[in-house]
């Protein structure tokens, strides 16, 4: 078993409105940041876990994401693992 670091990024599906992202964008524009086309807010989870290899860690993180970390009605997720 090796200690791995997994990162799960949960994003809103395309087409699902993101009022939080829109508000952050407006705030940045008020601060003078120009040229922002769009902002989508999401969540990141950094997960340290023991696993025999990267593939096994990815499989477990994917299962965690499907069952709990993301809500498939409105969200998608992306899993990365570093050993």
């Amino acid at each position, binding site marked *: 078993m090796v200690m791995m670091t997994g990162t799960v990024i949960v994003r809103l599906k395309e087409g699902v409105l993101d009022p*939080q992202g829109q508000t952050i964008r407006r705030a940045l524009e008020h601060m003078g940041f120009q040229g922002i086309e769009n902002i989508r807010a999401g969540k990141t989870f950094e997960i340290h876990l023991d696993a025999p290899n990267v593939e096994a860690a990815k499989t477990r993180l994917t299962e965690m994401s499907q069952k709990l970390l993301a809500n498939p009605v409105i969200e998608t997720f992306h899993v990365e693992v570093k050993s």
Partner: protein
Amino acid sequence: MRIGVVTFPGSNCDYDAYAAFRHVLGCPVEFLWHADSDLHSVDCVILPGGFSFGDYLRAGAIARFSPVMKSVVKFAADGGLVWGICNGFQVLTEAGLLPGVLRRNSTLRFACQQVRLRVDNVRTPFTRGCHPGQILKMPIAHGEGNYYADPEVIAGLERSGQIVFRYVNAQGEPDLRSNPNGSCHNIAGIINKEGNVLGMMPHPERAVESILGSADGLALFNSLIGAGVPAVGTDTTVASPLIERRARV
């Protein structure tokens, strides 16, 4: 009919629901603990409002994995009545007992106000005492009540009459201004296809006595327990000092 009110860590409307049943309606009611999978043979389970598990991750996302929820899912599959209010509605969608999801209010603000609901389906155990189109006044108090589902799911809910409550204006019309949180089609409450699991964001248990600003919530409680009028001279056995104080008020 015997009622069970589930208490999760962070529930804060469990006592309100308990008091409505016990002290206003005189209906047998008890608390069910989140870590206990025994539903004590109740006839209806209430998932109350609040912030179960601090709303961590997503509202209701952690509570749905509580031992009690395994039993509630089975209870619902066997036809048992389940009523999720506010956070309870969020738990029901996370548990997959109701379709869709309750997202952050489109205003990004916590909404705490009196609303008007139109009853669009009176063929449910929770609304059978209402008349079609009846308007009920009761409060909402939530940051994440913005009902969302895929357009096909919403169309299906519309077709099958599963949308039980909608936010409406004084004329009973579901317009943009009367929608407090951005919900699709002004949806305030839905029921499952089988008609035994209801989820709603507004708080009928906080609208059971005129001193609370509205007693319209009684229409739903009376539908459920099959009573015509609120009972008087209710059981005064006291479960906790909190209940005793409320009962005296």
